[in-house]
């Protein structure tokens, strides 16, 4: 029997009685681990070697987590400091000082304090919830358990710790090989290094040796080592597909700032300033910088008037506070509808006459929990159509056409409520594989109170949906974090099916 040199070396170095790691064989043979792995696969194919591979997931406490193990979680420290303080409620600065919190820990303490119901934070003061029991904080206990390896905490707590960056998940693949009975037999009956020609070389070609050479037969059925492919990110590919469909339907692309004034993000959308979605828990407000320099003064006045008095002869406004400073305050946009308001007002590219269709597939940001279906930043598909007279039937026809491009048919339109559209519809469509009805978007006809201040004298219908939602539908991914962000698993991206 003949084998290539590397294979022979690996087979000889491997044992029939014990599974040995690739690294060990690499050390023993002097070949690179990649070469050993390649040879091992060849031997496995020939039935001479068994390969077992296992993946281990190891949970490791991060530096930050380790610090909290010794100092206590910031929110727990805050609770203890606030409980120990004389005053009730305790001024935040005092509690923070007493808890020894500094830098980003302050915000972490405040955010998690409220999330865990340790008390309330309002107007610069902390009121502790007397019934809370931070001494038994499950996240702290889980952190200890992971560090000491004593126990495996519940998945929910584990995931929370990973989200907070206190624990990291590390995946290892280990391959071990062992000589099969067949391999032992072959070794005993003697194996020689191949004498036949393997690689075709320049010498072989320039001399005429190739005419008499015997070429070694390769195992042409065996899987080959794979070079990692250069490829477009799966989510980008889907975004491209969406853009292509929309351009084909006559839509023109919009772009604009990610950090923008609440005026463009919300006020122009006729969202009252005391709307729950505009509170600090949902919104990524900026601390540096804090406010936009200038807003179109006339538009600002018209929008304020619409909020206060409504639009039209018998229109009513909101009975909500209006504060120009809030309109000027900067935030990471919570939706890309801020682009639509900038375009519709003429601010972006000058006045737009009907008919017109515009779209964007750009990022929006939500200050929300990170989990399998929610990201802090995600792509929003946003589109609108402006024309003299648009009906609900036109809206339905447009969206049926769009979703049909992705194999989603029989759209249902569920009447809904949005502050900025009327009528409004949630869109439901049938999952191409499971047949289940799932929400695939939100749509409606922009209200007069939004359009009139923007100076639009035509009907505008609009819709939005998260690109990630469409992507999960099209790829079957069930955890959005595999797709997007620095937590990405390269292997997932390398093996994801191409979308076209």
């Amino acid at each position, binding site marked *: 029997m003949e084998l290539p040199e590397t294979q022979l070396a690996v087979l000889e170095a491997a044992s029939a009685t014990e599974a040995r790691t690739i690294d060990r064989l690499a050390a023993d043979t002097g070949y690179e681990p990649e070469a050993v792995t390649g040879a091992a696969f060849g031997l496995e194919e020939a039935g001479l070697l068994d390969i077992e591979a296992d993946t281990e997931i190891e949970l490791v406490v991060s530096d930050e987590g380790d610090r909290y193990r010794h100092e206590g979680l910031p929110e727990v420290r805050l609770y203890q400091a606030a409980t120990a303080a004389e005053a009730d409620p305790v001024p935040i600065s005092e509690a923070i000082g007493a808890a020894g919190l500094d830098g980003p820990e302050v915000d972490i303490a405040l955010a998690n304090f409220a999330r865990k119901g340790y008390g309330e934070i309002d107007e610069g003061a902390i009121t502790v919830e007397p019934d809370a029991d931070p001494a038994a904080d499950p996240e702290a206990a889980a952190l200890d358990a992971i560090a000491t390896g004593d126990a495996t905490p519940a998945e929910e707590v584990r995931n929370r710790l990973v989200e907070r960056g206190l624990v990291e998940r590390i995946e290892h693949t280990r391959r071990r090989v062992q000589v099969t009975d067949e391999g032992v037999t072959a070794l005993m009956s003697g194996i020689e290094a191949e004498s036949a020609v393997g690689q075709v070389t320049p010498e072989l070609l320039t001399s005429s040796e190739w005419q008499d050479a015997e070429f070694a037969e390769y195992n042409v059925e065996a899987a080959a080592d794979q070079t990692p492919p250069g490829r477009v990110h799966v989510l*980008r590919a889907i975004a491209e597909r969406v853009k292509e469909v929309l351009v084909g339907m006559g839509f023109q692309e919009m772009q604009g700032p990610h950090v923008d004034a609440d005026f463009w993000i919300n006020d122009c959308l006729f969202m009252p300033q005391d709307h729950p979605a505009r509170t600090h828990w949902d919104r990524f407000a900026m601390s540096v910088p804090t406010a936009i320099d200038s807003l179109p003064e006339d538009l600002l006045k018209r929008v304020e008037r619409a909020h206060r008095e409504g639009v039209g002869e018998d229109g009513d406004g909101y009975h909500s506070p209006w504060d120009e400073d809030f309109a000027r305050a900067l935030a*990471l946009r919570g939706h890309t509808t801020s682009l639509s308001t900038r375009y519709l007002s003429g601010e972006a590219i000058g006045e737009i006459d009907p008919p017109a269709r515009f779209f964007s597939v750009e990022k929006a940001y939500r200050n929300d929990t990170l989990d399998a279906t929610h990201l802090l930043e995600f792509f929003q598909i946003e589109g609108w159509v402006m024309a003299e007279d648009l009906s609900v039937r036109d809206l339905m026809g447009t969206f049926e056409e769009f979703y049909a491009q992705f194999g989603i048919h029989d759209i249902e339109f569920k009447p809904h409520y949005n502050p900025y559209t009327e009528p409004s519809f949630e869109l439901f469509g049938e999952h191409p594989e499971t047949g289940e009805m799932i929400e695939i978007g939100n749509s409606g006809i922009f209200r007069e109170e939004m359009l009139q201040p923007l100076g639009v004298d035509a009907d505008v219908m609009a819709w939005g949906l998260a690109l990630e939602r469409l992507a999960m539908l099209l790829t079957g991914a069930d955890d959005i974090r595999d797709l997007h962000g*620095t937590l990405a698993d390269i292997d997932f991206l390398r093996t994801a099916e191409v979308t076209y």
Partner: protein
Amino acid sequence: MPVVDIDPDELRRLTGTDKDDDELLDDLFALGLEFEGRTDDDAFELEFAPDRLDRLSVEGIARSLRYQYGQDRGVYVPNLNDPEWTIEVDATVPDERPYVTGAVIRGVNLDEEGLESLIQLQEKLHATMGRGRAKGAIGIHDLTMLKGERLTDDSGGSRIRYTGVDPDGDTFVPLDADAEMTPQQVLEEHPIGDKYASIVAEYDVMPAIYDELGLFSFPPVINGARTEVTTNSRELFVEMTGTDQWTIDHMLAIVCYALDARGATVEAVTVDYDDANAGEYAGTQLERPDLSVRTKTVTHDRIETMLGVDLDPEEVIDLAERAGLDAERVDTDDGLVYDVRVPPYRVDVLHPVDVIDDLGRAFGFNELTPRYPDVSTVGKRHERSRLEEAVRTTLVGMGFEDTLNFHMSNEANTFERMRLPIPVPGEFDRTDNTVEIADWRGAHAERSVSEDVVGVAVPPTIKEPYSEEYTILRTWALPSLLMVLERNTHRTYPQDLAEIGLVAGVDPTENTGVAEWRSVAGVLARHDASYEDARGRLQALTQAFGVDLATPATEHPSFIDGRAADVVIDGTVAGVVGEFHPAVLVEHDLEVPVVGFELELSALR
């Protein structure tokens, strides 16, 4: 979105139907109320969009169902008896909370379900329209426990007083307590007081309501125990205080409709505002509740164009009545219009378009046939988006794996782990055309770096981050790629990664104060990676886009000295290329050499 708990038997009784649970749930879904599950008591948990706040109680949902079933038609307004009671609003009421409204309810039969429903309605109204009691707070009292002071005008009426009291100025026994407390003690010691203390934290005096016997309610925090409502209460005094008269009047209307549905009689109350009141009704008298019906004028043409169907006027009137509205046909010079009457509980109707939505719902939106609009427009992408795509295709052709990373990051990942000091922003000055860095902090603060170094910029910073991982917008993209490498050390090499994505820096010359641009970044991680590999890819890229590349040596702490260069495109510095410093690699748990480059996308135009 609000969720209400509804006892299905109670719903059947108030609606007058014997449909089974499944049929009811279907009908509720048609109204937009989604079944979320059942409570421990087997009640429906129903979720709906926060427009129809009149549906926050079983009475309101029953009313909607009766319209849906055609058992009721048109606008209904409860009968309102003349006022006997007056709420006198005196000059000392806190300026921050000047408004009050009220109603007397007589002959109410509150069984357990009725009382529970009333409490739920109160809580849900607090959470929605009342904005957590800050904008409007409801107090419901047993009228028979009140002793009204005699009015001085000999009308025989009684009065209670809405006034301001020093935080320690008086005492009463609040609900869920067995001792007298001052308002201040309630805020500090009572669990409910504790919860709402923030609303009145800045008030000089506390809102208070008195009858002849003394203090009996401390809005918006808590009522007194004396006037507590029980299943034995037959007569109620409902008062609401707040920061806006319209809001509390409409919360009151919703409560009055709910109690009217249980057979109670609503009696008006006079609200008598002192001249010195901080609100807009100072010196006037209002009669409340305000159950007046508003009118919206809707044109026939608009109804047809918006729904996309032709309708007879009779049909429109019929649809309106089925929606609980009344439409009166008016022929004008401009064509056919309808004066549509809207009942006071419909707080969501702001504009005639809201009436059209109601007509559409009554018609059944899913009855409409979709049609593709006959509107022709030209589609196109903007230039940056096309350029980005072309660069991405080129990079992928060179074997780069395209990645997609978060724009948000933190200072450790963006600066410290890359051996950069963290810039501390100086005075944010709109007149100054440079971004001033006042100081440096962090582990590498002692390192003196040029402010021109790629990656060094004051990062746009988030005020209240959810996590320590996401506190700023990244100022450059290479740190994100190193983090992806860090996460994937167990995966097959080579790992050649690229990203075209947003980066940003504080810039006072921008209107938003933030300069945002797309950056092209690439890394090559392999056992034999060298500076030349990065320079080679960069060369191919710039050649493909027809721009001139020069790479004069530079100093950048993230790279090995002598192996880093500025990326100069057509004479302008646009980025950096180099071999990463071993300290950066070790920091990212990497055991192979890594080289990389980053440049502004616009430099390739």
